[in-house]
């Protein structure tokens, strides 16, 4: 019943106030989040809750399959506001395993308008078809694509003019790619973080071997996980 939601809201507000009488006053007086969260619309991923932050501490943008498309006015407005007005320090693209949007993009079924929205994922899947075909199990392939999609969206964010302008002005800003599992509530860092430090490769933990996404067909070059930075002089 819809009335239950309003009753729940009364209970929630009363409990919050009882536990912390200053909670709503504090929340209403300022919004200075350090983080912009770009996540999936999936209702099972409550952004601020999974990272243990209060609502005012995380600026949130959600859409189906956590995309960061350069033509989407909604996303661009959020990004510009977060970077230029709120001056967030971190942008987190967080996908989740088993994403229905990613699964839909990988399937052949026509769903309508959402097919247009998901077309970047379909293109990414086509691009990596050979690599994905090595993974026999469909659900595992979906999860691998969920990860690949996060990496692609991190690349989109770092290529965005608002982000590049911020870096050019010396603003401290890092972009991160994470993935969440609804089955255990845990986030995995996909190690594709990018800051404005110069260098061709994204910041990652020191390792003896480079990280390679998937199996590489014989005779071809391994594909390194790589997200370009404004200073990147990598040979593409």
């Amino acid at each position, binding site marked *: 019943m819809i009335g239950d939601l309003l009753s729940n809201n009364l209970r929630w507000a009363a409990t919050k106030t009882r536990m912390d009488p200053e909670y709503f006053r504090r929340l209403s007086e300022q919004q200075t989040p350090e983080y912009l969260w770009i996540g999936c619309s999936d209702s099972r991923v409550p952004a601020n809750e999974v990272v243990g932050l209060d609502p005012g501490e995380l600026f949130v943008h959600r859409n189906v399959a956590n995309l960061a498309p350069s033509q989407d006015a909604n996303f661009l407005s959020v990004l510009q506001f977060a970077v230029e007005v709120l001056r967030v320090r971190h942008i987190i693209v967080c996908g989740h*395993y088993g994403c229905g949007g990613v699964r839909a993009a990988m399937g052949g079924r026509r769903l309508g308008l959402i097919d247009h929205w998901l077309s970047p994922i379909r293109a990414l899947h086509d691009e990596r078809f050979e*690599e994905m075909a*090595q*993974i*026999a*199990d469909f*659900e*595992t392939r979906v*999860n*691998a694509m969920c*990860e690949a999609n996060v990496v692609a969206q991190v690349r989109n964010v770092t290529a965005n003019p608002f982000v590049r302008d911020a870096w050019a002005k010396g603003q401290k800003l890092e972009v991160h790619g994470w*993935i969440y*599992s609804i*089955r*255990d*509530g*845990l986030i*995995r*860092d*996909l*190690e594709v973080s990018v800051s404005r430090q110069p260098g061709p490769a994204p910041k990652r*933990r020191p*390792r*003896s*071997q480079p*990280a*390679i*996404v*998937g*199996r*590489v067909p014989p005779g071809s070059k*391994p594909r390194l*996980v790589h997200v370009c930075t404004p200073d990147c002089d990598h040979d593409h």
Partner: protein
Amino acid sequence: MMIIDDHVEVPAQPSRLLIEPTPPELLRHPLDFLFAEHYRHRQLCRILDHLAEAAAADLPLMARADDFIRYDLALHVIDEEEDLFPLLRRRCEPDDDIDQVIGRLSGDHRDDAALARTVRAHFAEALAKAVPIWKIANGPRDLRQFARQERAHVALENAVVMPLARARLGGEDQRALSRRLAARRGIYLEN
């Protein structure tokens, strides 16, 4: 030994029919922890084979096996599917052919999950009726099949995946894996 309706009553051997808990300190050594979990899965297989053969209903043992499949095994699948395997995909060398191995193991997990539902349904029926598994249609066959599948799966993981994990996962990878294995079990490990 007593013979009832062609079924041989196997005397219960409590020490063989236990699933030992994994020592919590192993969480600090995630690959050893996962290896120990595989050992527990073999213990489950032994119990499933025993229940498939047993002439008398051992309801507490059925309930324990059912709980293990429901909780421990399900958690272990997440440990691998959404943690160890994706990490290995990022760390392995092209020659490791990790996608093919993981693709097969993930397929096994899917098959196991389907059969686990069937086995749990057999347990539910046997527990409700307080009868041994042989009195449940297809019960012994499905329990044996599940045990066979699980043994083959664990053997492949121990032979291929665990050595690769030891070779490719660095100290920081293993520390992060430890913390997630623990969190999944309700334990917060300090870094």
